[in-house]
């Protein structure tokens, strides 16, 4: 008796849908095991972690705030990954978007008009897209691996932000402390449903809907899918692989940049050395958990937002370590990658005899 993985004749549509749910179920189950090993009541701990964030209007607002940047970046990455372009540097593009958009309040502190905000958001998109253009150029011109280049640029952006906020861009009245001037009036995103949720959340949902339409109904969407899955076939039908790389990097970079400026002009309200707690990296999990489907990404973004907030309530209510969020996020990515195997393979129980295992 042994278990083998057998290749399916074609992708299983059912498993493609079930895999993320299975991954979440496995994460919850093993999360319960971890809580039990820590000496906690697993049911109560899981309640605190996964359900309590949904039980009050306040924490639902916080969930939306947390999910907005994840969704905004995640939908861009979903399209990017669908084209098999591996942009790992969304965190850097987010940072550059935040910096580019912040130029307005830093240099034109007194400018107050609805156009101020529009200019900030547009600059944010441009900043992120331009930073995404660097790996695109290196890839198309020199065939440099975009995984490495985009990832390394994250650190470049991070140090640039650090230097600006501590040096030339710091608040002149701030006693040398590392923060910019506070953004005021039209330099801040308007809020909806109270004073916490900013319009970045609407932008995130809008971006997801537009990209869902583009991917499902337009030639561009077809081009991206075919260039990702069968590049030779795509080239025969006249699509350019280089153009696909450019499109994917500019789109995902621009959306990450928008997320960056929305974070700074939204809940933060001023530039500081730490612009994001790793949204650009977490969004990679979001994109895969959402099946690289823009609508799926919305749900995945909320799921990951829960893992952040749940980690905080678990810390306060249960006294577990702050690292618990990272443990859950890691488990989630691990299980989803493992479960994705089941889309192309099925598990078979063999009795007697030994057959070669057909691995991946």
């Amino acid at each position: 008796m042994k278990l083998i993985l057998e290749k399916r004749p074609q992708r299983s549509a059912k498993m493609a849908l079930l895999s993320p749910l299975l991954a979440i179920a496995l994460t919850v189950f093993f999360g319960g095991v971890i809580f039990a090993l820590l000496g906690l009541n697993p049911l109560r701990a899981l309640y605190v972690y996964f359900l309590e964030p949904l039980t009050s209007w306040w924490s639902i607002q916080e969930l939306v705030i947390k999910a907005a940047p994840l969704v905004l970046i995640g939908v861009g990455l979903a399209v990017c990954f669908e084209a098999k372009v591996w942009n790992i540097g969304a965190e850097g593009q987010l940072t550059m978007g935040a910096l580019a958009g912040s130029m307005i309040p830093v240099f034109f502190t007194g400018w107050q008009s609805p156009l101020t905000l529009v200019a900030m958001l547009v600059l944010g998109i441009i900043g992120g897209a331009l930073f995404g253009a660097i790996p695109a150029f290196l890839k198309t011109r020199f065939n440099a691996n975009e995984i490495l280049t985009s990832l390394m640029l994250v650190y470049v952006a991070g140090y640039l932000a650090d230097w600006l906020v501590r040096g030339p861009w710091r608040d002149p009245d701030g006693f040398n402390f590392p923060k910019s001037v506070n953004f005021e009036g039209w330099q801040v995103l308007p809020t909806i449903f109270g004073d916490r949720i900013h319009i970045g959340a609407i932008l995130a949902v809008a971006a997801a809907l537009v990209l869902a339409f583009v991917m499902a109904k337009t030639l561009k969407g077809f081009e991206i899918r075919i260039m990702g899955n069968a590049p030779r076939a795509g080239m025969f039908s006249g699509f350019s692989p280089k153009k696909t790389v450019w499109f994917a990097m500019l789109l995902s970079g621009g959306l990450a940049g928008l997320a960056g400026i929305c974070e700074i002009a939204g809940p933060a309200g001023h530039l500081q050395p730490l612009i994001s707690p790793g949204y650009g990296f977490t969004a990679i999990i979001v994109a895969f958990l959402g099946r690289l489907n823009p609508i799926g990404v919305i749900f995945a973004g909320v799921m990951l937002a829960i893992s952040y907030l749940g980690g905080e309530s678990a810390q306060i209510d249960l006294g577990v370590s702050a690292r618990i969020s990272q443990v859950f996020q890691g488990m989630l990515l691990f299980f989803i990658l493992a479960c994705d195997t089941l889309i192309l393979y099925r598990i078979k129980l063999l009795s007697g005899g030994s057959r070669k295992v057909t691995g991946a």
Partner: protein
Amino acid sequence: MKMKWMGIAAAAAMAALSVTSVDAVAKTKACWVYVGAVGDFGWTYEHNHGREMAQKHFGDKVETVFVENVKEGPDSERAITRFARSGCNIIFTTSFGYMEPTLKVAKKFPDVKFEHATGYKTSKNVTTYNAKFHEGRYVIGQIAARTSKTGIAGYIVSFPIPEVIAGINAFMLGAQSVNPDFKVKVVWVNSWFDPGKEADAAKVLISQGADILTQHTDSAAPMQIAEAQGKHAFGQASDQSKFGPKAQLTAIIDNWGPYYIRRIQAVMDGNWKTASSWDGMAEGTVSMAPMKNMTDAVAAEAMKTVEGIKKGTIHPFTGPITKQDGSVIGEAGKPLADGEILGMKWYVKGIDDKLQK
């Protein structure tokens, strides 16, 4: 311990489920937001130690809760709001980057008292608090100048904010009080906690002739390098002698306990008021670890300086002080004004470094 946490968890759950039950809780609830981990043996470790002291002091009358590793920015606003909603009566936010979030949340919860460490903005229910760490730095400067054979100390620093600059200057003035030719070399690592970079900085400083290290960063790495290379160092924020039993001369210890006890008591008595607290050795917020690895004469002199600072007869920034650019500040025999120290942007003469404008 586990049972206790379960109890707190159950209480918190009940508070969360029934909004009206808050009034029923007679206990005063004090809450802390930490930027680092409670096990960092530096900044956060000492704040948490202060929390433990408060808990011990008040026993059953006070409930204390903390949350660690909270990122500065929107995450901290949420964490502070969570505490304010969960019935905390007083909330201590212990990092500079929590300043704006603390003020924002405080506006929404006028009945909750907020205390922000190291900031400069107060409001009706937001107090700022910090400690005169430069008093300790003056003492260790003196010890360094007496103990050093090369006459050079290495100073590992984070960011050029006034508190850090005042620390470097106080160290130098302490050293100059016994050796006017003493030299201080400065290396900026641009981080509050980065053991790798701090260790590199320590090695560089030692290779440049420094035989005594001090730091305004939070890891124990420089102490370990000093121990390994047979040099001396001063502990930061807490007693780090276990990282350098032969290297540590003494340490400046942040002792927040008395302050926390006083402020929580004020909340219980109903006479909490907004303030900008700036306690030092006299109040016990800044204290020194046991003097070791030095001659008795040096230790005795250092203790005398500590006593003088406590009594107010010695003030680290007593005029006239010659700045790096040659100009002189302060009247003879009089200490600088607090505002001058809290906004310090200049070096004392003799420091081997330049501040960016």
